[in-house]
């Protein structure tokens, strides 16, 4: 059994809702990450992704003046460290989000990304293939 905690990313950055879109973009670029969790008074209230920032540019939003709260997604679909990976993957595929913040006892502990899931499933297939190859050698060929 594989759980969310086994493959989630613990590197997590947050931002206050009143910061500008430009400040959010700077933070994403500096930390080389694709999303920031928006925290208000210690509580996660939304998520802002590189897609949100890019769409803001397409919509002529003023990135140096407008706040993150204007473009963030408040539909925060979360998961827990103890959730089975396949269930988290299902949620992600069905809700078409790229990131699931991981919450434990009301506290943010990490983030599960699309890349984490895709990479781990192909890793799993590769190791399973190797396992099968090592355990079941083909029978000797006898004419």
């Amino acid at each position, binding site marked *: *059994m*594989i759980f969310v905690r086994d493959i989630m990313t613990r590197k997590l950055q947050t931002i206050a809702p009143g910061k500008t*879109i*430009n400040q959010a*973009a*700077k933070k*994403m*670029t500096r930390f*080389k990450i*694709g999303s920031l969790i928006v925290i208000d008074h210690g509580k996660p209230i939304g998520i802002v992704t*590189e*897609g949100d*920032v*890019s*769409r*803001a*540019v*397409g*919509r*002529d939003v*003023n*990135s*140096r003046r407008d706040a993150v709260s204007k473009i963030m997604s408040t539909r925060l679909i979360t998961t827990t460290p103890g959730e089975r*990976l*396949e269930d988290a*993957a*299902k949620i*992600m*595929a069905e809700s078409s989000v*790229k990131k699931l913040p991981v919450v434990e006892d009301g506290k943010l502990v990490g983030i599960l990304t*699309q*890349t984490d*899931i*895709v*990479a*781990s*499933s*192909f890793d*799993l*297939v*590769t190791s*399973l293939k190797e396992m099968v190859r090592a355990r*079941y050698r083909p*029978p*000797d060929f*006898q004419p």
Partner: protein
Amino acid sequence: MEVPPITVFGDVTIDDAAKLMWEKNIGSVIVVDMTGQMVGIVTERDVVYSVSKSMTGREIPVSSIMSKTVLRSSPNESIATAVEKMRNAGVRHLPVVDRHGKPLGMMSMRDALEVSWPLLRLVLKSIKKRRAPHRDVKIRRG
């Protein structure tokens, strides 16, 4: 993968490229020259970079923020190889080109998730099956 791929010329502005990505609901566009050959790729991440450097709203062309050394894939490559390439490079989009460098499509991590999630379910199911009731069955060789 996204077929046909969405392409732009290098002189399109960053703002227009971002708008196009928004309208088409995609995370990247391929930049082509006049002959249709791929010369670069622009992703949402590049647009974020341009926002952080205040390059938007100033008629700056995408050619100034695009990645020129573009990682690519061929149509006959396996999905696993394509995923490995994206993972190693830390990117989420991989242009698929023919042998002349003409873009045929765009493969994304989103596409890979659609394959990998049912695959994951299948693998985990097969592991469970293998472990549970047949533990004592001997495999007859030859």
